[in-house]
Every structure is written in structure tokens, then in C-alpha cells.
């Protein structure tokens, strides 16, 4: 659809008027260069190829092929593949309207929800494990997979259009498009319920719109100028809202805009008034509009997800109470002194537990314990989880003063053993740096001070009442200031492999958060409302949208940074451009089928070579200029810097930040960069084949400007021949690797070995290497 629109645009403007230096404005005077050797005429072949008809035909063929490659056997496998586990499930949550939590913004997932709803998915299937069958569960998964497949297919004409708009000839534009079209990684990634196809599609649209916008720079503030500016903003917001790493596209456009503004600030070019107008226009188009769009997606997200779901527990109590059917909303109760309660750790979901058994005198590593009664974390309901809250101040007989409040100092009495919770300066069993938790008999007052704990409710105001479920708290020991804490580490057999509870010296430790799960028993107080028995259904509370958004956004960032667990297929960014590792998405042992995410080796290596060549050309040019030699004619050089340079910027901005991230990284994080590198490859190919000829001018001229004599790029026969030969090689490798991309047909061990082009690829079902190999 997008492509046809582009073609119509082009058709209207006519030949030779289009196409741009993307990044920085050229000083208008400089445009008038005469170039030795630059052709002012085109060969007939070139003219034919660059006619609108030929261009339309080629883009049509490429788009058709894109749809074929993306939709071929899209129903295979009829099982949950890789991260469909997550994103399919999220779509189901939208349909069920159950609240969930994820690190990525909601736009792409909303689209999946919409697609699922459209094809009649009822949201009951839970996408539990990779390999679960869709057919058995009657899930209309093909419809859901069609969405990324459509977007992934449309990316191909958009890439073509970007190149075409940048002033490259049809064959070179087709070359870049083919690099994406016949790339196994792009294909594999867009045939499944994954976010990347959406991300890449909108990212390429952002680049396209920005280039269109730049081409209207000579008729600033015109309708088209505004149109493409706002389009850039909107697409940018969609990119960002598809996946967190879409933020890199925003950064990238931001850098380009700053360079542009810096240029406009030049006193020779504009008055301050003109500069401020430009500045404000960009602030509106590229900050305000995207922000509104981005927030809108979240607004829809919250508007759809109104019921309680698996994401509840990530959120703050105030947030949770806005969800229908949430446990907090239904069961949160004020806690009073002498209530007997069970206490649960927020992160690991274990109950605070104690039993008659004692710590062994001597641990394996030779350290000595207090031999006190064990205090542990236990995952299951048990009467040993019951603790009674004992006041440390005088209480009235009845009334509101019996409610436990923020900052109160309390004692916790373990009901079954009638002993108080205590901690002291003895090392805990597993962590010598942390304090041991134990208990002390109720009747023995000798260590009264060590049994005092202060209750710190999280984010509470003075005098706030402690509530069950919603009142998250830290329990800080009064004499030693340690926080009661637990973590996923089991004690040895002497504590029945229960979880260790100890005192963390960082009293403000975030993971030392607990809450009261249930009020087990309480003394009746006629003056206060009864808390037991059935509660009436409560209406969800309201919370300001911006508060909800702010909370969710911060949690998303925190969790994203926290995804550091190792994953067998995670890889470090340095491997990506060279395609050193892939990801096993899915396997089927019976038929020896597998889906392995790996790119087209020829294509990827071409792209990375192109970047190296570009850096080489630019470096050589800089060195030569330093010595007053100018090997590259100015128009070609401007195109190289401003247009190819912009593509390289897109590549670099989408790639290098990953080196600074400590979260787990996968090769599909490189796909946006790979797209940018395909653009670079096209323009480098143009540079190599064109004998310093370019299409010029390509920006739209204002009526008052003196018309320029046009220049034309001419690749001659070399262009089509090179691109066809290359496309053929790419196609052969693509087809050869296709069984790994489409997950069918199955391969025997030797076939798998033959497809393991690099020794670092970890394919399944490989035959054992023969001896002496």
C-alpha cells in the first residue's frame, strides 16, 4: 500500500525532480558545481530502467516476492515457536482484557491483540510452552502470524522507496530491497508472532518520511513539509511504542535534527526568527506529536486491560486497586494489634516460617551459629507460618488506636512455638555478611530489645494504617538496623531445604519487601467493622492516567535492565554483523525439523563489507583533503557524507548502544541495524559502479530558486548485470538455508552439517563429526 502511494507521489513530480541529500543542508550556492566527467545525459538503458513504469514494475515484483517469501507455509509449524510464548500470550490477555506486565511498550502487542480478535481468537489458549500445538487448541494462529508477515513484506518496498528517494537508480534501489527480501533472518522473524517485524517496518517508514521531509527544505513550512515532518514524528512514535529498542530510532532522528538545526543557526543562512520557527516546528513535530501518540497507545492499553490478571503483582497497590477482580481490591484489610497473620516475601513468594528445629552448632565451613530456633522462608501454607503482632506501647481497649501504623515498633510472636522473632549480630548460615534470624522464648525477657522491629511501610505517609495484601513493608531491626530479607537460596537438609531468612545490612534494600498475606485470626472488637466473612464486590478505584503511565514506564525500564539471566542463545553484539551465531527458535525431534534464526550469509557479509568500504572511502578522502588533494568531486562527496553518512548513522545508533547494555542480547536485536546496513550497501554499490555520476538535483525546488542543470547517474550495463548476478547468488543461498527458516522439510544429520556454514552456528540434529576429521 505504502509503495503505491510513493509511486503516485513520484509520478506527480515527474522525473529528475525527486531525491535528497538526507542529512545536512548544502549551502545553496554550493549546489552549482560543474563536474568533470559527470554525465548530463543518460544511456538509453538507464533511462528505460529509471522510467516510472519500470520502477513500478520492479517494485511490484519485489513486493509480490516479499509476500510469497513471508507467507509461504506460514501455517508451519502449527506449534508455539520461541517468543510466541510471550507475545501470543499477551495478545490473549488483550482479548481477555486481563492486566499483564511486559518490558515492551504496547503498540505491537495491541496490533496482535487486534489481529487475534479479528480472526476470532477467544484468548483461552495460554501459549504455555514452545511446541504446544495450535491445531489441537483451535487457535487461529495463521491470522495472527499474517500481521507481522504483511508488515515484514511491506518493509521491502519501503526500503526500495528510501533508496529511490535518496537519488539512487532503480537497480541500486532494487539491490538494497533484495538484501532484505532474500534475507533468511528477516523472513524467519516476520513469519512468527514477534514484535520485530512491526518495529522494523515503522523504523523504515520513519527513515523514509524523514528523507521526504528533508527534500522539502527549500519550500519550508509548506503543506508537504509539515506533512512529512509530522509523519516522521508519528512513525517514530510507533517504532518506539513497538519495542523498547525503538527508542534508538528516536535518538537517531534526534541527532540528524540537531545537526540540521546547527546548520540553520549559521548566521549566513538564517535570521534568529527563522531559526526559532524551525526549532518550534521540530519541537512540535518530533517531540510533542510523538509523545501524544506514544501516550495514546498506553491509554488504549489501560483502557483495554481493565481486569485483574498476571501482571497485577508487579504494580503498586494503588494501581492494583484499579483492576476489576483484583485481590487487593477485594481483600485488603486494616491490621490491628494482636491479629495473627501470615507474612509473605514479595519477590520470592515464601511465607515467613519457623519451627522447633534449631540451627546446627557448627556449619560445614566451620562457622558457629547461635543454635537458636530456625527462621526460614517456606513456600506452602502451614500453621507454622502464623505470627501474632504484639504491641510495644500501651493500647486502649478498643477503637482505632489498635490499628498498626507506619513506623510502629512491634514484636512478632511465633504462635506455635510461643517465641518472639529476633535477630542479632551472629552470621547467618549461608551469608557471613548478613545477620542470623531466630526466635526467643516468650517468657524470657532478657533479650527484649533484640525482639523489637520497626515497621516501614513502602511509600507511606505518617500514620498510615497497615493493610493486608496492599501494605508492602520492610521490617527493620531496632538495635542493629538490618532489614529482614530472604532470597532464592536453600538451606541444607537440616532446615528441610527451606529458604534462608537473614538480616540485610542495607536497610533500604528493595528486595527486602514483605506483605501480610492473610489475617488468620483476630480478637473481636465490637467498635470496629467486622473483617471476616464475605466481602461485597467492590468497584475498581480510579487512578490518574499519567500516574499509571509513569509507574508502568519506570517498571518497564527497571525490568528491562534486569533481564540479565544467561540464555543459551544469547550472543554478544560483536558477533552480529558477521552473523556468527543464531537462535534456535523451535525443534521437532521426530521429523528432525527445526527453525534456526540466521541471516543470509552472503547478504550480511556484503553489508558489513559495505560499511567497511564506506569508512575506507571517507577516511581516504579526509586524509587526501588534508593534503589538499580532492579525489572525489563535490556533488558525489556531499551525497556520500549526507546520505550514506545518514544511513551509517542509523546503523551505528541502532548497533553500538547494545555494547553498553548488560541485559541478555540476541541477534534479532541487530535486524534494524542490518536494514540500515543494506541501505549503506546500496549506496556504496552505486558509488563503485557509477563513475562519480549522481542524480542531481533531487530536492524539491522553490519557485523562486534558479533552476539547476540536472545531472544523471549512469551505471550502464554493469548495474543490472551485477545486481542480477548478486540476486541470483543470494537467492541460491536463501533457498539452500530455507529448511532452517521455514522449519520444513526435516534434514538428516549430514544435511544439517552441510548447512552449518560457520562453525559457531549451533544447529540441532547435527551428525557426529567423523573420526579424524
Amino acid at each position, binding site marked *: 500500500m505504502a509503495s503505491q502511494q510513493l509511486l503516485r507521489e513520484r509520478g506527480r513530480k515527474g522525473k529528475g525532480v525527486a531525491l535528497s541529500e538526507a542529512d545536512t543542508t548544502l549551502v545553496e550556492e554550493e549546489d552549482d558545481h560543474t563536474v568533470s566527467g559527470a554525465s548530463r545525459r543518460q544511456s538509453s538503458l538507464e533511462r528505460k530502467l529509471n522510467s516510472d513504469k519500470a520502477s513500478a514494475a520492479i517494485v511490484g515484483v519485489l513486493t509480490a516476492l516479499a509476500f510469497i517469501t513471508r507467507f509461504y507455509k506460514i501455517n508451519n509449524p502449527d506449534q508455539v515457536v520461541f517468543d510466541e510464548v510471550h507475545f501470543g500470550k499477551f495478545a490473549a490477555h488483550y482479548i481477555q482484557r486481563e492486566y499483564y506486565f511486559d518490558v515492551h511498550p504496547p503498540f505491537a502487542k495491541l496490533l496482535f491483540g487486534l489481529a487475534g480478535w479479528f480472526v476470532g481468537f477467544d484468548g483461552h489458549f495460554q501459549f504455555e510452552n514452545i511446541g504446544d500445538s495450535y491445531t489441537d487448541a483451535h487457535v487461529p494462529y495463521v491470522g495472527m502470524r499474517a500481521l507481522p508477515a504483511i508488515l515484514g513484506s511491506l518493509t521491502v518496498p519501503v526500503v526500495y522507496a528510501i533508496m529511490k528517494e535518496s537519488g539512487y537508480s532503480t537497480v541500486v534501489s532494487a539491490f538494497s530491497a533484495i538484501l532484505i527480501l532474500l534475507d533468511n533472518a528477516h523472513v524467519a522473524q516476520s513469519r512468527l508472532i514477534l514484535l520485530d517485524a512491526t518495529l522494523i517496518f515503522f523504523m523504515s517508514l520513519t527513515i523514509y518520511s524523514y528523507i521526504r521531509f528533508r527534500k522539502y527544505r527549500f519550500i519550508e513550512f509548506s503543506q508537504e513539509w509539515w506533512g512529512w515532518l509530522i509523519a516522521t514524528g508519528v512513525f517514530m512514535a510507533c517504532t518506539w511504542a513497538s519495542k523498547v529498542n525503538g527508542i534508538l530510532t528516536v535518538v537517531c532522528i534526534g541527532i540528524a535534527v540537531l545537526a540540521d538545526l546547527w546548520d540553520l543557526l549559521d548566521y549566513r543562512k538564517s535570521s534568529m526568527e527563522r531559526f526559532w520557527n524551525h526549532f518550534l516546528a521540530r519541537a512540535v513535530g518530533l517531540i510533542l506529536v510523538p509523545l501524544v501518540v506514544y501516550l495514546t497507545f498506553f491509554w488504549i492499553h489501560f483502557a483495554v486491560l481493565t481486569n485483574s490478571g498476571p501482571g497485577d503483582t508487579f504494580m503498586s497497590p494503588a494501581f492494583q486497586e484499579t483492576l476489576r477482580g483484583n485481590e487487593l481490591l477485594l481483600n485488603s484489610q486494616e491490621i490491628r494489634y494482636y491479629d495473627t497473620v501470615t507474612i509473605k516475601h514479595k519477590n520470592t513468594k515464601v511465607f515467613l516460617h519457623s519451627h522447633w528445629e534449631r540451627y546446627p552448632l557448627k556449619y560445614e565451613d566451620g562457622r558457629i551459629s547461635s543454635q537458636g530456633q530456625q527462621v526460614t522462608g517456606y513456600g506452602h501454607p502451614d500453621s507454622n507460618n502464623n505470627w501474632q503482632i504484639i504491641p510495644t506501647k500501651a493500647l486502649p481497649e478498643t477503637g482505632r488506636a489498635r490499628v498498626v501504623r507506619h513506623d510502629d515498633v512491634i514484636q512478632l510472636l511465633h504462635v506455635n512455638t510461643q517465641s518472639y522473632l529476633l535477630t542479632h549480630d551472629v552470621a547467618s548460615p549461608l551469608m557471613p555478611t548478613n545477620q542470623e534470624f531466630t526466635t526467643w522464648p516468650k517468657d524470657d525477657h532478657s533479650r527484649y530489645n533484640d525482639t523489637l522491629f520497626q515497621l516501614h511501610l513502602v511509600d507511606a505517609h505518617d500514620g498510615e494504617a497497615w493493610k493486608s495484601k496492599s501494605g508492602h513493608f520492610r521490617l527493620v531491626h531496632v538495635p542493629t538496623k538490618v532489614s529482614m530479607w530472604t532470597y532464592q537460596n536453600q538451606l541444607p537438609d537440616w532446615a528441610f531445604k527451606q529458604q534462608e531468612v537473614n538480616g540485610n545490612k542495607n536497610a533500604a534494600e528493595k528486595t527486602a519487601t514483605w506483605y501480610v498475606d492473610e489475617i488468620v485470626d483476630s480478637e473481636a472488637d465490637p467498635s470496629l467493622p467486622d473483617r471476616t466473612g464475605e466481602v461485597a464486590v467492590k468497584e475498581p478505584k480510579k487512578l490518574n492516567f499519567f500516574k499509571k503511565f509513569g509507574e508502568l514506564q519506570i517498571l518497564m525500564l527497571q525490568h528491562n535492565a534486569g533481564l540479565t539471566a544467561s540464555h543459551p542463545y544469547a550472543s554478544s553484539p560483536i558477533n552480529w554483523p558477521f552473523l556468527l551465531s543464531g537462535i534456535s527458535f523451535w525443534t521437532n525431534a521426530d521429523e528432525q525439523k527445526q527453525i534456526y534464526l540466521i541471516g543470509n550469509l552472503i547478504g550480511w557479509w556484503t553489508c558489513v563489507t559495505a560499511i567497511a568500504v564506506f569508512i575506507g572511502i571517507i577516511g581516504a578522502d579526509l586524509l587526501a583533503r588534508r593534503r589538499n588533494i580532492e579525489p572525489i568531486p563535490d556533488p558525489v562527496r556531499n551525497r556520500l557524507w549526507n546520505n550514506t553518512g545518514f544511513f551509517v548513522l542509523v546503523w551505528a545508533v541502532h548497533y553500538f548502544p547494545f555494547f*553498553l547494555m548488560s541485559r541478555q542480547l540476541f541477534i534479532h536485536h541487530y535486524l534494524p541495524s542490518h536494514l540500515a546496513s543494506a541501505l549503506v550497501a546500496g549506496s556504496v554499490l552505486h558509488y563503485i559502479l557509477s563513475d562519480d555520476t549522481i542524480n542531481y538535483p533531487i530536492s524539491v525546488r522553490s519557485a523562486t530558486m534558479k533552476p539547476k542543470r540536472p545531472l544523471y547517474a549512469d551505471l550502464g550495463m554493469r548495474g543490472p548485470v551485477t545486481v542480477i548476478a548478486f540476486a541470483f547468488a543470494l537467492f541460491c543461498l536463501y533457498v539452500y538455508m530455507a529448511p532452517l527458516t521455514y522449519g520444513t522439510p526435516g534434514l538428516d544429520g549430514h544435511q544439517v552439517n552441510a548447512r552449518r556454514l560457520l562453525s559457531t552456528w549451533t544447529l540441532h540434529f547435527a551428525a557426529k563429526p567423523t573420526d579424524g576429521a
Partner: protein
Amino acid sequence: MEHVPPAIYTLLSCWTRFHKIGKAPYVIWDEAHFGKFGSHYLKREFYFDVHPPLGKMLVGLAGLLSGYDGSFEFKSGEQYPETVPYVAMRVLMAMFGVVMVPLGWYTAVELGMSQWACHLVAIMVLCGKSPSQSPVYVAWLCISRFILLDSMLLAFTFSTVFGLSKFHNQQYQSFSFDWWLWLAFTGVSIGCVASVKWIGLFVMALVGLYTIEDLWEKFGDVKMSVQDQLRHWGARVLCLIVLPALVYMASFKIHFLVLNHSGPGDSQMSSLFQANLVGNDFAKNPLDIAYGSKLTLKNMGWGGGLLHSHVQTYPVGSNQQQVTCYHYKDENNDWIIMPRWDEPDYDPNGELRFLKDGDVIRLQHASTTRNLHSHSIPAPVTKLNNEVSCYGNATIGDYHDYWEVEVVDDIKRGRKEKFVTIHSLTTRLRFRHQDSGCYLRAANAILPQWGFKQVEVSCDKENNPKDIHTYWNVESHWNDRLPPGDAKFYRSPFFRDFIHLNVAMWTSNNALIPDPDKEDILASKPTDWPWLRLGLRMCGWGDQQTKYYLLGTPVIWWGGTTSLIVFLVTLGVYLLRQQRKYVDMEPREWDHFLYVGKIAFIGWFLHYFPFMIMGRVTYVHHYLPTLYFSVLLFAHLLDHFIFSSRRFTDRTKWIAFGVVAFLIVGNFWWFRGLAFGIDGPIHEHWGLQWRKTWNIYNQL
């Protein structure tokens, strides 16, 4: 006359550094650490440490000059006996602190700062970092850490910047004697700073960037002859690359020459190196390896360790017993050569059977009796390789325990065709897992905390015959039935030992990553530093105790950090104004503003930013070199805005100078108690809590 102020400042710094230097007759702070290394040099015993040797050799030298014999153990907190001339040693070490002050002064002069700014730099260096730099004030301490080396690191960082600024001022007298002198001085300083700690490489990066810019300018000078171009390039390569490398290597050469006795660091080095140390008995090992021999296996890769196993199991993969590479001597490194399961059991009284190329054996771990085992489960870190574990016991096992011995060659006897039996130390072996065809390999990949940060051992499925990380040799060898050997060994070449030790240092350094399960109250995050977010209690906080608190001088830290921001803003404003064609400065002034700003700001950035992305544990003293650059920038900005400005009269400048100097000195005096020790209950001292995050007072 021009040398009078620096002389006075030097005397002052002598006073602050030497004042009460002998007050605490205990081993304090990191004296425990580096005193011990110094002793090793005096006793000439080989030790291992993650830092290059120059700093510790200087400690040893200080000990030698003061007449210390190296016999003291330097246990933290212990009282010095009569025999240890600790005061003399401390004075010698504190010299590095003293020398920073004149260096700071002259650097400021060379950077073209006004007299006022030079005074401020000297005062700031004098007052800035007293607590942590002069360990003596800090008194006895519960914990020992690395700070002593930092005063040397700082001194050499200062001298590098000084050399650079001197060299810069010679730029119009290329190839003159002074030009060569200061270029070479810079090079030697870089060599020294890098030989104290690898952090010194950051200042090398600063010099490198300066040089690249300089050469880029020269490259654009088309009038310069090609010959001169080449001479400029050659001079830089010689003085800034070759010379530092020589200094760095020389420090290692001396290190090896001095430490020629066997000591605690032996096992970090190759077997051959160890065999040449005095006191080593490898030469007495029986020569030929036989079935039933107990032996240790050394990996021959750079930085390789001994094949090791211990009762702890893998928490991932097979959950069987861990196999690692370990760099210390321990009986868990011992393995016994056993016949296969399908062969008759090893008979201790039967005929001796020597090991030869192609034999398929079982390697039994001596202390747990489990067998070296591998299977097609991915290794924990190098996931492409198979896991290696210990499995079964003396009677239980399977064919996964079989390893085929492949002889590569013998260092002494040459190609493998020339001999039959396998010798300890010299024969290079590979172990091939018979079932899966993979090779036993250890390549400096560090296991997580559950593996005690030891080196991972895996089984490499790719047969790469040139990969020395798959080469092993027998190190220790015990067999009562064989006669003791009497071998003479080649000395291992210096270059090999040099690379080997550097790789080993790198590997251990990488293992110093923060342990999430362990709380280290000394560690802090880089983001805590610029604004002095945290201070540190260095001893008990009782009312009767003298209390010491580690804290910088706030005015200097905050002033330095503020100047970084001010500099960026100023630079931005100037550039914007230039873009709008406002002329604020003459080109010469602008160049000077940029030059000093670049040295200071880029220097700060290079010394700060890497810590943000480094995975290892960071301490506040890592910020000290960084602080120096922010001090320079602070003075530079004051100079730019006030002292060198034409808008102000001398009177105004005097007042401004007086205010800033008073603030710094007053601030230092205000907090002097923290460094000199606070007596009596802390609540009687008022006004020390300038930030909420400092824990000077007890909070209830």
C-alpha cells in the same frame, strides 16, 4: 624568584604528609598488603598479584633503603616490632605524595595559567585528598585495601600531564634537545604509570589523543617536507610507544630477576618457569609417567592453571562434580593415571606400565576418587563446548571416562617420533575424549561465584591442533616405584614469562567482579564519586575511640565537578555564538581555552567513564586521578573567567583569589578532624554532616 612559591608549597606538603607519620605503630590500611609484597622482594620469593610490579618494587626498595630485612609478616593491625623501620619506609612512600604538589604547580604554569590559578592548583592538591592519600593519618584500620599504590599512580599521572604540557610548549622548537627531552619524559612517565597499575593506561589514552590531534595538524601542513613528517611520526612512535613498552617490560624483567626463589605465586606461572626457581624440586620428580602415578596437570596456554576438581557440584548442566583450573597448590589438583574399566584393575605390585602416546586412560581425582568425565551437555560458560565433570568413583564409571593421550612433542626431546615414554614437565600432551572426540581445554573463561571464580574447563568439539589451550604438561609427579629424576631445564625465555604473567593478571583482574551475595562496604559506584555522595567510617565509632572518616574535601570535589558542567555549557555557548558570528576572543585565546579545556576535560572523562562500564568492583580511590583533572579544569575556568579577564581590576582578582583560597583552606581545616582523628563522642562535634548520605553521626 619564580621557584619560591613551589618550594614553600613543597615544604608545606612535607609537613602535612610527614606530620605524626609514626603516630600509629601498627600495620594500617593497605600496608598489610603491600608491605607483604615488599617483603617478598627482600626475601626474593616469587608472588603473584593483579597489578604490575613497579609500585611494589618501589615498596621493596624503600624497605631495602631503610634497612628492613623482609622478615615481618605485615598482619593487619599488628604492632610493628623493633626490627621494622616502618617510619623510614613510610617517609619514603610519602615522598610520592609530596612530589605531587610541585608537579601540580609547574603543570599549571606550563598550561599557561596565571599566578593566581597556579596557587589555587597547588593549594587544592595540597588540601584536596589528604585523608586517603596519606595513609598514616588514617591510622589503624579493620580492613586492608589497595591505596598505597595509588599515591604512586597519582604521582606518575601528574608527571605525565606535566611532561605533556612541557612538550606542548616546545612545539615550535621541533627536534630541539628540550623537545626530545620532554617527549621522552612523557614516554617514560607513561611507562611508569602503566607499570604501577593498568589504570595508568587511561592517561596514556589522553596523551594518545593529544598526539593524534597534533599529528593530524602536522599532516595537513602541506609545506612540511615528507622527511620532517616522517621524523615527527617516528619520534612519537619511538618515545610514546616503544619507550613506555620498554619501561613496562623492564619492570617485569627486574621483577623476574629479583624474585628467583620459589614462593606463594609459583603456580600462576608455567611449569618450566617454576622449575627454574631456587627451592623448587620439580627436577626431583620421577621422569617417566607410568600407570598408577599421581600427578598434577598444568594447562600450557597463556595464564593456564592446574587441572582441579572439588566436591562442589555444577548448579547447571549435569549437576555433577565441578572440574576447573586452579592457580594455587592444593591436593585437589592431584590425579592418578588408571587403566580403562575393561582392562584389569591397576595392581600396585604388578609390572610397571609406562604411559605412551595413544593410550586410552582414566584420570582419577585423588581426593574424591571420581573420574574425569565428559558428555554432550553444554559447558557452563563456553556453551559451544561440552561440559567436563567428575563422575562415579573408584569402582563406578562408564566409557565417558576414557581419555586418549595424544603427545604433541617434547620441549627437550623434540618431535614425538623420537621418543616413547612421556616425561613430566617437558612433554606436551593433549587429552582427547574418546567417545565424543572433543579435547580437554581451559582458556581463561571465569566461572561464576558457584565455581569460586576459578577457570572453566571444557571439552572442545573442534579439533584445533595448534590451540595451546588444549596443551597440558605433567607438573608434579609422584610415584614411589620410580627413581627420582635429575633433570636440568632450559630457562624459559623472558618474553614467554612476560606474556604468561600478563595474561594471568588479566584473568584474575576479570574475576574481581562484584559478588552480589557479598556486601563490601568499601566498594562504591562511580556515580557516587563526583558529588562525594558517600564517606566511609574507617574504624569503630565508640565514644572513647579516635575516629577516622574517609572523605574528600567537599569544596574541591564539588567545585571540580561543577566546573565540568560549567565548561561544557561555556563551550556550547561559545560555539553557538560563533555560529552566529559573535567574536568573543582572539583566535589565540580561543585556542588556549580549548587546549587546556581539552586536556582537563578529556583527561577527566577518560579516567572516569571506563569505570561506569567496567564490570569489576570499584572503590572511591579510583576517582583520585580523575579528581586531579577536575581540579585543573576548576583552576582553568577561574582563570578564564576572572584571573585572565580584562574586565576585572587587580583588586577584584585579589579578592576573588582570597575568597576561593579561603574556602578551600577553611574547608580543609573544618574537616581536618576526619583525617587527623576525632576524639570524644561524635555528637560534641558540630556541623560535619554536609550531606544526608554521610554517616558521620549516629542516626537513631
